């Protein structure tokens, strides 16, 4: 169990060192990631220029969802990468190389795309969170602080699992790498907004089957002590860590199934 962690740190350390070689490029990338992630927040502000509430949610509550989704998205992107490099490996046959190495293929794919510049988006999310959290009337108790601590790791695991499953499509569709965008960017877009405003069929699919509602929506209901507009039992709000665990298991199984069906492009 310790050994993969050491190996991962070494892999990531090497990538960080190489990215910091070009300081100006790195800073520009960081600023760029920071800037472009503001677009989504501007969209939230534009919406609330026209209405005071979206469903039952006011602007500060949606900003809270937004901030948590952005931070989780950015950290997932930082930790496991975008999984958009490996379809290229499948296309040119280089995935074979991963198969003969004595480590899990998923571990190798995840460990090989660490981009420090992705912190730019996380910083933006943290700024929004810092700005909004003071103005929200939250009664901090042990349960809420506990939820605050576990919700981001749980969100990262859920996002990560969804991306892995989405990325697996690349095993069957060699040039279909963009499928994963629907899951990664689409998932983030959805998690930034309250899921109760979606129509029932879309909610069932994107919020529960693809468990994106557990990224921000349910944990936020709990922390903000907001009555659930969907009137689900209250314990659902606490399920994110369990859902994250289940999602990770499913993603692992799907990955294993997909790798077993990998046909090399030769080379």
């Amino acid at each position, binding site marked *: 169990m310790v050994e993969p962690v050491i190996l991962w740190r070494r892999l990531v350390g090497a990538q960080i060192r190489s990215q910091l070689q070009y300081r100006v490029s790195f800073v520009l990338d960081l600023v760029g990631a920071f800037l472009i992630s503001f677009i989504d927040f501007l969209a939230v502000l534009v919406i609330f220029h026209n209405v005071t509430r979206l469903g039952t949610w006011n602007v500060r509550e949606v900003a809270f969802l937004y901030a948590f989704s952005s931070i989780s998205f950015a950290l997932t992107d930082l930790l496991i990468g975008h999984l958009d490099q490996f379809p290229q490996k499948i296309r040119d046959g280089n995935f074979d190389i991963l198969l003969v190495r004595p480590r899990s293929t998923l571990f190798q794919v995840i460990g090989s795309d660490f981009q420090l510049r992705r912190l730019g988006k996380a910083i933006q999310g943290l700024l929004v969170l810092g700005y909004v959290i003071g103005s929200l009337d939250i009664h901090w108790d042990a349960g809420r602080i506990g939820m605050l601590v576990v919700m981001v790791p749980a969100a990262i695991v859920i996002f990560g699992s969804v991306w892995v499953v989405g990325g697996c499509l690349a095993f069957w569709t060699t040039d279909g790498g963009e499928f994963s965008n629907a899951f990664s960017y689409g998932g983030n877009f959805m998690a930034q907004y309250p899921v109760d405003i979606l129509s029932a069929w*879309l909610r069932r699919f994107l919020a529960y089957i693809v468990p994106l509602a557990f990224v921000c929506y349910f944990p936020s209901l709990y922390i903000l002590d907001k009555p659930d507009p969907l009137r689900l039992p209250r314990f659902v709000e606490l399920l994110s860590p369990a859902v994250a665990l289940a999602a990770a298991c499913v993603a692992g199984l799907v990955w294993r199934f997909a790798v077993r069906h990998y046909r090399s492009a030769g080379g």
Partner: protein
Amino acid sequence: MRLDWEIAKLGWRRYAAYPWATAAGIFTNTVFGFIQAYILLAVYRHRSDVGGYDTADTLTYVWLAQALIMTVYMFGWQELALRIRDGSIATDLARPLDPQRYWLAYDLGRAPYHFIFRGVLPFAVGALVFRLHYPSVPNALAFVVSVALAVVVSLGFRFLYNSSAFWLIDVRGVMMVSLTLSLFLSGMVMPLAFFPGWLRTLAHALPFASIMQTPIDIWLGKHHGAALVGVMALQAFWALVFLGLGRLTLRAGARRLVVQGG
């Protein structure tokens, strides 16, 4: 002319070669369309009109924007910048064909492919689920012309920020700023009708609205008679401005270009 036609065919074929990429893109556009449609529908629970848009206008906007996103190529395009960085631009400049004309022809071949294969299907899915607004025949024709003009404005802008590569080794910073401006101020992220008054005025005064907001407004029948001609003339004006500026930077850049190695 014949040469332009051949280059345009190249542009079409380059994208037609990856059918799964097209399918994946359609899926992604459709998912985004649904999420955005329901978010904006929630705005209409509290009011029936936003900046002159009713529910059908806004839903149509959402699905047209998803349909046009690839046609006008909103996201990062850096083929020219990469050719400048690796020195291939020297070969391009040595050819008896102007690089800007080459990319314009190429892009005008690419755009119809994306219009038909990336645009029609997501829009059709949206039209099946929601009640959308459909244009009159003259407006539909004006819409097609306006989309073509939008492609030229977009290419002109992309060519311009790509040519900053003559001066900068790494254009990603410039690209990110250009993307942020064009995505937000074109109306891609949110219809300009939803913007606060001052920001809407500003956005309409800038060239980016010509890339997305203008063709969609024409589809929605928001412009008539002289005003319709006016907005299309404005698109043509911005296209010429960007192409002109691109030409100047290309000339200035070519003069200081030093290609290392060989």
